[in-house]
């Protein structure tokens, strides 16, 4: 009875989330409450399944970015980069995409695109160019950048939290392949978009009229923010050695910046995406219920039967399944379900499952580039573009996103095989 109820509630919630007929936070909260009301989990058991480390990293970084953005530093970077390349459209695309990828490695992808896309519109309006050849690479750069670090994408935060893999582990193991994928992707973008980026030299010079110094609204706050950001990044690099959870690093940085900045707490907290945090909370309880009733264990047994204890086969299945699923489904519930599944596989087979974490991370994060609905950042950018009078349709994005995503997964598969699976 509990087994059927848990599966039914989980499937219904996921269907509502994927179809977007109900707000995902509401769906997850209702599902979680049903789990508790039906006593499938006790309240304490439910709390035990909530990954507060993941929530802590998210809250901490949301608070930090909410303060840092008030300095105007992101606007400064966009103008500085555009002027540095003397208004050359392709070089602006490359610069903004690199900035997007780097920011996305430390902040979540949605926040990154919300910061970069408005500036992209101002630049493309000045150059009188279609913004879509700028936006599509930025979308893909945000997903790639987020893949490279522990804190860049929620799936990685969840994997790191569940496994103890640290910030340096992610950079060392995923950084190299992400750099290769970025280079390959943008080599192809240059060929694809070259004809859409032709403008007169006079237009390029208009970019030089921008003054990046005007973008800095609060130099004092900027100095404090950069110091705190530096400390937070150092903290992430050394959090394993210091035996501090990543959430503590993020929250300590947030607390320090709140103290130094003297920004209104109400203003700062209005930047925290509470619906996202409650969505995570509800989701963890739903997956926890599946674990408790044994569904995850059964699925793990099934998978082990199919693949034996063949790490190579399991790894390839994981990365491709994760990528294809993630290109159409929200990767957060997907990864939340896979985490206990992979742990169960590890217990059943005794094999070193670390490569499977890299497979899931690469598949789930890069898979989001496959379609317009593959990641929240993609949908956000499409919405902003439409409001700006430029429709980024599902079909238009698919022409670029799907082949490039498949290329990135192919390269990742080779990388995993060569370095981890054999």
């Amino acid at each position, binding site marked *: 009875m509990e087994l059927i109820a848990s599966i039914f509630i989980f499937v219904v919630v996921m269907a509502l989330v994927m179809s977007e007929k109900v707000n995902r936070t509401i769906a997850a909260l209702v599902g979680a409450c049903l789990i508790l009301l039906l006593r499938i989990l006790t309240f304490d058991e439910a709390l035990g399944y909530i990954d507060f480390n993941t929530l802590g990293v998210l809250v901490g970084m949301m608070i930090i*970015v909410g303060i840092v953005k008030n300095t105007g530093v992101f606007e400064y970077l966009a103008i500085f980069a555009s002027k540095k390349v003397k208004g050359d459209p392709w070089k602006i695309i490359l610069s903004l995409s690199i900035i997007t990828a780097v920011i996305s490695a430390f902040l979540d992808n949605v926040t990154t695109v*919300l910061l970069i*896309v*408005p*500036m992209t519109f*101002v630049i493309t309006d000045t150059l009188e160019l279609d913004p879509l050849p700028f936006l599509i690479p930025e979308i893909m750069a945000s997903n790639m950048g987020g893949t490279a670090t522990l804190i860049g994408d929620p799936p990685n935060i969840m994997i790191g939290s569940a496994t103890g893999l640290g910030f340096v582990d992610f950079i060392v193991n995923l950084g190299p392949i992400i750099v290769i994928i970025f280079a390959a992707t943008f080599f192809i973008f240059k060929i694809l978009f070259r004809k859409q980026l032709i403008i007169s030299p006079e237009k390029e010079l208009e970019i030089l009229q921008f003054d990046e110094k005007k*973008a800095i*609204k609060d130099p004092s706050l900027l100095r404090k923010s950069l110091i705190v950001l530096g400390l937070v990044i150092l903290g992430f690099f050394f959090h394993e050695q210091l035996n501090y959870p990543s959430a503590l690093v993020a929250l300590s940085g947030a607390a320090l910046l709140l103290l130094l900045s003297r920004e209104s707490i109400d*203003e700062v907290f209005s930047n925290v995406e509470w619906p996202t945090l409650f969505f995570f909370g509800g989701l963890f309880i739903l997956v926890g219920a599946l674990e408790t009733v044994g569904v995850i264990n059964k699925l793990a047994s099934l998978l082990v039967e199919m693949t034996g204890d063949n790490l190579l086969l399991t790894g390839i299945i994981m990365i491709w399944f994760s990528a294809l699923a993630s290109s159409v489904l929200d990767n957060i519930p997907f990864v939340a379900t896979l985490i206990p599944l992979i742990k169960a596989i590890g217990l059943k087979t005794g094999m070193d499952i670390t490569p499977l974490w890299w497979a899931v991370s690469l598949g789930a994060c890069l898979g989001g580039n496959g379609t317009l609905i593959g990641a929240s950042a993609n949908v*956000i950018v499409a919405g902003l573009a439409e409001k700006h009078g430029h429709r980024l349709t599902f079909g238009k994005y698919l022409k670029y996103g799907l082949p490039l995503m498949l290329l990135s997964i192919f390269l990742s598969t080779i990388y995993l095989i060569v370095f981890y699976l054999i």
Partner: protein
Amino acid sequence: MNNLTANLEEVDMQLTQMGAKVTSLHGLVSFIHFDLNQTELFYVYNINAKNQYFLQMVKPFSTGAGIFCKPQDIVQYIKNDLKQFQNASNSNVFAEFTSVNQALYSTIRDIKDVFMTYNVPREKMLQIKGKIDEVSALLEDIKHTGVPL
């Protein structure tokens, strides 16, 4: 952060490059609607993190009512307005009153546009001021000779 903040950033960036100092705050917007006899009153007020209320009348004509610090001030202002409009809406020249006010605000905009676009001789500006003084004198005359509501 959401789509609204992204739209705000785009506008802020352009205004900043024009030389503006832009301060953005989170706030709440309320729409207030009264249905009266011959007209409707429509106000908008915004309250922000600095506890300032920006009140604006939108209908029957558009006018900024001011910046207030206390919610009671907003309520009192609207109460006074409502009482006056309720009295006035019983008048048989209320429609003309509304169109006079709309014409007045349109004229204020036109004066600004003309002044900003053309080289206006001093005599012409003084002529315009003269016409406005005539209207003020007429209003004073109505106050002295008219019957209060």
